[in-house]
């Protein structure tokens, strides 16, 4: 049933420096998480994506990147779904 979604999440976790992924619907309900991603963060991530999309309503939803010293969270929105990718900062960037 959700094997396809599991495959997408697992394949995303295989990419370099990725430490967590999350996918949620437009209500903030987490459909699936991997790694460090907390399923309770789905609401927050969806809210951030919705607010950012209001800046330019006529354009596609933007990609938001929350950066801290060691990690970054990339939030993207497609249709009614919002995804977040947690990444560790690569050493070359420091």
């Amino acid at each position, binding site marked *: 049933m959700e094997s396809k979604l599991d495959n997408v999440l697992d394949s995303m976790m295989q990419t370099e420096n990725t430490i967590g992924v999350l996918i949620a619907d437009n209500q903030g309900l987490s459909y699936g998480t991997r790694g460090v991603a907390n399923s309770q963060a789905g609401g927050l991530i969806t809210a951030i994506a919705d607010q950012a999309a209001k800046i330019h309503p006529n354009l596609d939803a933007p990609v938001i990147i929350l950066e801290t010293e060691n990690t970054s969270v990339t*939030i*993207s929105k497609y249709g009614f779904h919002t995804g977040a990718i947690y990444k560790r900062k690569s050493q070359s960037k420091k």
Partner: protein
Amino acid sequence: MEFLHSVIEAFSNCCLNCREEEARAGEATERSPLLQQQDQRNQTLQIRRISENNIDENEISTSFPTREKDEQTALSRIVQETNSNIIDVSALDTHHMLEQSEYNDRVKLYNQRLAQQWNNIPVPELGYNGLLKDMPNPEILLNFNPTTEELAIAKNFVKEAAQAINDMKIDNQDDLVVPFHFK
């Protein structure tokens, strides 16, 4: 005959004089007394002054007989006005004169009081007040822009995940109709 002529001449002269005097009643002639004329000028000047002090001219003309009184009141008013307008600097200086030592003492006292008051005033801390105040080194973070590759990966991931969610179907594993056996 000559006598008659002289009489007529005298009459005509007299009448002409009368007419001239009538015509020049308002004006100063060579016969009008000089002192009286000076008086009249003073009167008109006085009236102008008083009219400048916001007094009705009609009131003055009606109270013409009591001119001396008006002059006194006008004079006293002028004296009062000048008195109020004058600032006697010399008198002020004598009252508020400060000795040099006293002046220095006061400077010290006021400086002390100011310092005390400054210590008492709670000054808000002037810390860094910006969006990135949680970031230790925002310059390093801001130096690296996200690459298009990263953005494409993120977009693609969400797109695939959304499609996967939309493709979700409930697999029918058991029979929909379950027979219950009541005993």
